[in-house]
């Protein structure tokens, strides 16, 4: 036993525990900062003004294996810069990052082999090549033999619902289809880590829903870092969300935890013709408050409760039994991630 009261077995267990935790981290970001300095020049070469932009300010984030983490923030928040640092396309000013255990600076080739990167840009494939040719080309860059590359391309195009378009030149496909090819390319070598930079940006709702469902159902074993400025997307897909603004993580947690930071209750909004009995509603078990405003014979009733969905049918039943009011409109409002972001930064995500 040592002076701190630990036995050697205790120390070994602690050490192994820490190592096991480390081993389960697929993406480790430690104090990562990136400062861009743009220099305005006079007569092409004489620098006259330097502008410093801190795109990332000491970001620390660990993503365990098999988890989907989201970076949610408005344009210019630093989401893409962080993805590019991890993808080895931008050199960080300071700090470290490891992907699948590989340092993105010192072991960049291994890191690149371990990740698939999907940048939400339909131009990032060859428009003069067919969908299949595009996928096969990139598959071969990941050292796949021709037959295996073709099989993998067909498998992925099939999963994306594009197999019948496989031999059509990409320039003749729709924006959504091209984005699916860009997405499929990121999966070509079955990487354990995926960096998805706004994968559904500009997609019509059907294509966006398809992709989200694919991420949710078919990529369960992958570790994913997803950037988006769509709140519902982050809410739907992510195990944890980092709200990022001006290069800093402002808040971090599961979607539920983040929303609870703003308020830990829901509000039930009911529009009725007539005036419901507020006293009876307030007596329902679980109701935190009930208020209404009446105008031109219509009432706007707001009832708050811990779990609005659980309480809603009690309130509706009571109004139904109370002959003095009839429900015209009903809605439960949970706090949104946008509310969280607004509270933290004073601006909305889609600003």
């Amino acid at each position, binding site marked *: 036993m040592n002076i701190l009261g630990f036995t050697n077995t205790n120390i070994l267990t602690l050490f192994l525990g820490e190592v096991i935790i480390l081993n389960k981290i697929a993406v480790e970001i430690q104090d990562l900062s990136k400062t861009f300095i743009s220099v305005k020049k006079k007569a092409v070469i004489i620098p006259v003004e330097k502008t410093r932009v801190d795109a990332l300010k000491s970001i620390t984030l660990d993503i365990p294996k098999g988890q989907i983490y989201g970076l949610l923030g408005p344009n210019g928040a630093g989401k893409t810069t962080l993805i590019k640092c991890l993808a*080895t*396309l931008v050199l960080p000013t300071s700090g470290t990052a490891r992907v699948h255990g590989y340092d993105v600076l010192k072991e960049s080739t291994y890191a*690149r082999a371990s990740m698939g990167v999907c940048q939400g840009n339909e*131009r990032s494939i*060859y*428009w003069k090549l067919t969908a299949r040719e595009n996928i096969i080309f990139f598959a071969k*860059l990941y*050292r796949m033999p021709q037959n295996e590359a073709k099989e993998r391309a067909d498998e992925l195009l099939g999963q994306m619902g594009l197999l019948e378009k496989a031999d059509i030149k990409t320039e003749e496909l729709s924006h959504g289809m091209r984005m699916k090819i860009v997405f499929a390319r990121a999966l070509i*070598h079955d990487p354990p880590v995926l960096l998805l930079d706004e994968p559904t940006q500009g997609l019509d709702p059907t294509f966006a829903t398809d992709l989200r469902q694919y991420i949710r159902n078919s990529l369960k074993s992958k570790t994913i870092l997803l950037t988006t400025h769509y709140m519902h997307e982050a809410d739907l897909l992510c195990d944890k969300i980092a709200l990022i603004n001006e290069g800093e993580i402002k808040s971090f947690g599961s979607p539920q935890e983040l929303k609870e930071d703003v308020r830990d209750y829901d509000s039930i909004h009911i529009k009725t013709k007539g005036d419901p009995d507020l006293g009876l509603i307030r007596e329902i078990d679980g109701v935190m408050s009930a208020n209404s405003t009446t105008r031109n014979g219509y009432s706007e009733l707001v009832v708050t409760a811990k779990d609005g969905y659980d309480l809603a049918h009690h309130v509706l039943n009571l109004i139904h039994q109370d002959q003095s009011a009839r429900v015209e409109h009903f809605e439960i409002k949970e706090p949104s991630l946008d509310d969280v972001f607004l509270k933290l930064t004073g601006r909305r995500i889609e600003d």
Partner: protein
Amino acid sequence: MMQTRESLRSADEEREELENGYLTDFQPRMMDWNASRIFAVKNIRIAIRYPTNVLIWGLLPILWLAPYLLMMTAVAGPGTSEYFSEVSGFSDFLQFAVIGWFIFKYIDASIWSIGNNFRWEQFSGTLEPLFVTPVPRISILLGAAFSDTVQTTISAFILLFTAMALFGVSYTLVAVGPIIVIMLLMIIAFYGFGFMLAGMILVFKDPSVLTELINNAVFTVSPITYPLQVLPAPARFAAYLIPSTIAIVVIRDLAIIGTYDLFLFLQSIALMCGILIFFWAVGIGVFNYGEKWTKERGSMGGF
């Protein structure tokens, strides 16, 4: 630490990793020849899908060369002039110029091709996706170079055969091997120059003024359509500093006369090898610097 981590992996995790054979066997390579070939094939496939390229490969070169040949014929009469024979040592200036132009096609392509290819990838939005693959940069650069050499070969031979048919020139085929050796050394040496321009394109995005200047300067002082002897002394000195000059002089002798002094030939090979090493060292250095520069500024895919 990594060893300890490895030994602590759970059975499930190890199984998961083993299923991904690619990662299990992955080792970085200094050079990936297969990737170069794949990149070159991709470029050629795309080039073929622009039908107007047929005109660029087949028609444009002869349209550029024909005015020179017609002007020569108009000034000196068909075939030759006494003064030309005296300064060049060759009897037919059409035969002299066509082979010079044939070689210049390769010089021109080698200067432009790799940089232009990177510019095209930048514009297309495909440069960043290429750079996130674990392929060595040199393999991508060489792939771009190979595809352009193939296209240039098609174009150069169309030019040669068309000019031979139109202007009635012919060449001896007794020294094809030495011609190929010198041509290859010259082309490979210029690849190094192309790497340098690709690095500059990453930084400056559009160095067309610089490449135009270099290209035209090389064209002006190289003995392509006229012998070196007609150049003023300083320009002649500058011509000998350009690696292609040696190649043009040796190849022209081999193609027209069919012989070349063995010692001078070996000396030329040694010189070309020296130039090749120099260009590659500078080219790769500049490219690596350009890549680092753009990664620091986050402007890799920007144009």
